[in-house]
């Protein structure tokens, strides 16, 4: 018994000694900086959630493999907004903000982003959106969009329709949410300026799959072009059904994905979009490095949604965190990243972009990136016009 007491006593003394004499924990042992994401992980937009999370995770893996940012490792926490459900987004955001105490949330879709923005303001948390395009996302506190919004891209759809197709009568078919309505509103406004008339406006549910009633009404309105404010797989279904129902006029839009191309097949031929498009084949070193790393990880070329969320972590949050650490702050603390972002924008700091060159984020939360008009040839997009100083310069 006495022997046992001796051993216990010695152990306690050794533990106390270790606690006093041991060196402080290295930086790597500190709590990781948690990055929240609210994405479409289930539902009709699950494709987006998958590629967006892959893009961000790739950046996090690269940073952690290199020892973190100033020794601080990163960790991604993902919540699901079920492809646009604002209630699900708010539930996810409350968990991320109150339980996980994240200093930043990477968000997607317009309605979920709008729904969580007041919560982010309350907690002084930075919001980065690389997916939603609704014009209602402009000028929202704490929110910075790294994808050009519909109010920025849709006018070029109309410009293209008028200049290339001499369109006088435009019909619109769009998501019945903030994003789609934003595109529709921007098209109507641009049409008013460029002398064309919107002859049919048909909203549809996200992921509707059947558009027969809308297409019948559009066909009856005899438009010169059909402009889409729909996204993702819906574009493929719309093209298939519109062509099958005998709509032969040019169809233009603001979104294209490989999955939509797969669904639409040959009916996608000639479909044209105005978009800030990421080109995996571009020559920039950052682009090349990102594309190669993504391909190595996922055996697939990155989508521009993957590029946007990779950019969020690697090219926006990383430099911001480094600035915070350099001045002795804690990037994991709510308010720090937001404050640093605001300081960076006041100093008109440009962020590098995997699109090539830099991206300029504006204080109203919009971004300027290379913008172009593309159309589908075969099963891929081809650049047919560059946008310079607000005008489309068609490629010969």
């Amino acid at each position: 018994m006495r022997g046992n007491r001796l051993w216990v006593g010695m152990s306690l003394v050794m533990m106390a000694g270790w606690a006093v004499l041991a060196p402080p924990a290295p930086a790597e042992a500190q709590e990781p900086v948690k990055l929240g994401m609210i994405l479409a992980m289930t539902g009709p937009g699950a494709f987006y959630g998958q590629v967006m999370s892959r893009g961000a995770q790739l950046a996090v893996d690269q940073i952690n493999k290199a020892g973190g940012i100033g020794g601080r490792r990163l960790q991604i926490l993902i919540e699901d907004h079920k492809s646009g459900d604002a209630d699900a987004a708010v539930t996810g955001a409350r968990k991320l903000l109150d339980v996980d105490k994240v200093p930043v949330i990477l968000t997607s879709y317009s309605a979920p982003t709008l729904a969580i923005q007041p919560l982010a303001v309350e907690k002084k948390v930075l919001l980065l959106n690389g997916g939603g395009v609704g014009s209602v996302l402009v000028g929202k506190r704490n929110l910075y969009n790294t994808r050009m919004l519909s109010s920025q891209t849709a006018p070029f759809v109309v410009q293209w329709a008028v200049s290339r197709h001499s369109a006088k009568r435009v019909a619109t078919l769009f998501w019945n949410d903030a994003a789609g309505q934003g595109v529709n509103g921007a098209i109507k406004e641009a049409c008013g300026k460029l002398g064309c008339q919107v002859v049919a406006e048909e909203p549809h549910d996200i992921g509707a799959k059947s558009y027969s009633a809308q297409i019948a009404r559009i066909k009856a309105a005899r438009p010169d072009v059909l402009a889409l404010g729909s996204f993702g797989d819906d574009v493929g279904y719309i093209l298939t059904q519109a062509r099958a129902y005998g709509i032969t006029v040019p169809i233009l839009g603001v979104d294209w994905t490989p999955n939509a191309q797969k669904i639409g097949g040959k009916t996608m031929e000639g479909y044209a979009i105005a978009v800030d498009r990421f080109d995996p084949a571009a020559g920039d070193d950052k682009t090349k490095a990102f594309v190669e790393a993504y391909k190595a990880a996922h055996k697939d070329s990155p989508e521009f949604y993957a590029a946007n969320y990779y950019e969020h972590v690697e090219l926006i949050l990383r430099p911001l965190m480094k600035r915070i650490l350099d001045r002795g702050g804690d990037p994991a603390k709510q308010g720090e990243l937001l404050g640093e972002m605001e300081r960076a924008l006041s100093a008109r700091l440009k962020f590098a972009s995997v699109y090539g060159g830099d991206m300029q984020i504006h204080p109203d939360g919009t971004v300027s990136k290379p913008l172009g008009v593309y159309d589908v040839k075969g099963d891929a997009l081809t650049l047919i016009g560059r946008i310079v100083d607000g005008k489309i310069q068609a490629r010969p």
Partner: protein
Amino acid sequence: MLALAAQLATNGLISGSLYALLGVSWGLIFATTKIFHFAHALTLTVAVYAAVLAVGQWGWGLPAGFLLAAVVGCLFGVATERVVYRPLRRVNATSLNIFLASLGLLIAGESAVLIVFGPQARDLPGFPISGIALGPVAFTTVEGLWLAGSWALLLLLIAWLWWTRYGRAIRAVASNRELAQCVGIDPERMSLLVFGIGSALVGLGGMLLALRDTVSPTIGVQPVLTAFIAVFLGGIGSIPGAVLGGLVLGLAENMGGLLLPGHWQGVIAFVVLFSVLVFRPSGLLGVRTR
């Protein structure tokens, strides 16, 4: 305007035919067993996923996929009746208990499909989709198959119900369970039979749907909700009523496009249901009961 009306009527006839098939698949079970079989949506999902796996990954042909969906649907429906509903009936569970069990099965089943197959939408390959134009109206080859397939199955079922011994026995149980039992019909056996037939039909209906739409774990809910509306619209307990309910629903949803934007279809469906139920609470062809 005339061309638009013709196109919308065609659309209505096409979607109404599929609604009729789905309505009959559920209405047959409900009329015979009085079970509010919400898990019918899960049967559709399971049957279609089995076929998508066979056609998309194992390289089976599309006809074999249809056959598999019918078989899997039938077996799943029968298993649901034997494993879930019959034990509940034996302990005198109320209709509400059984409905809640069905709802629980649907939620748990959808989650299981989500875990096993993931959230990503899948498609059913192998059917050439193109347009068919007939004068002022146009539709796709898939929609043509909806029309032909739905009516072929509906007519076959109606003929079987009216002109065969088992068909008449099912109608007898649906009409009066106790009286049918008195003349030697086993209602439990008939329950099993209608679960098998109704579930095979919803599997086939799901396949028709999957030819146009992508397949996700929640694919079954919306079509089965539409089936409920068709059944209540047409009259509970009436198979011709479910067919008529489906057609009226499809036509009303689409013809509403003459006056309202296309995305109001869902609202129109409920307005039609409400209006019919106010003036004819037993549905269009339902039998008034005191």
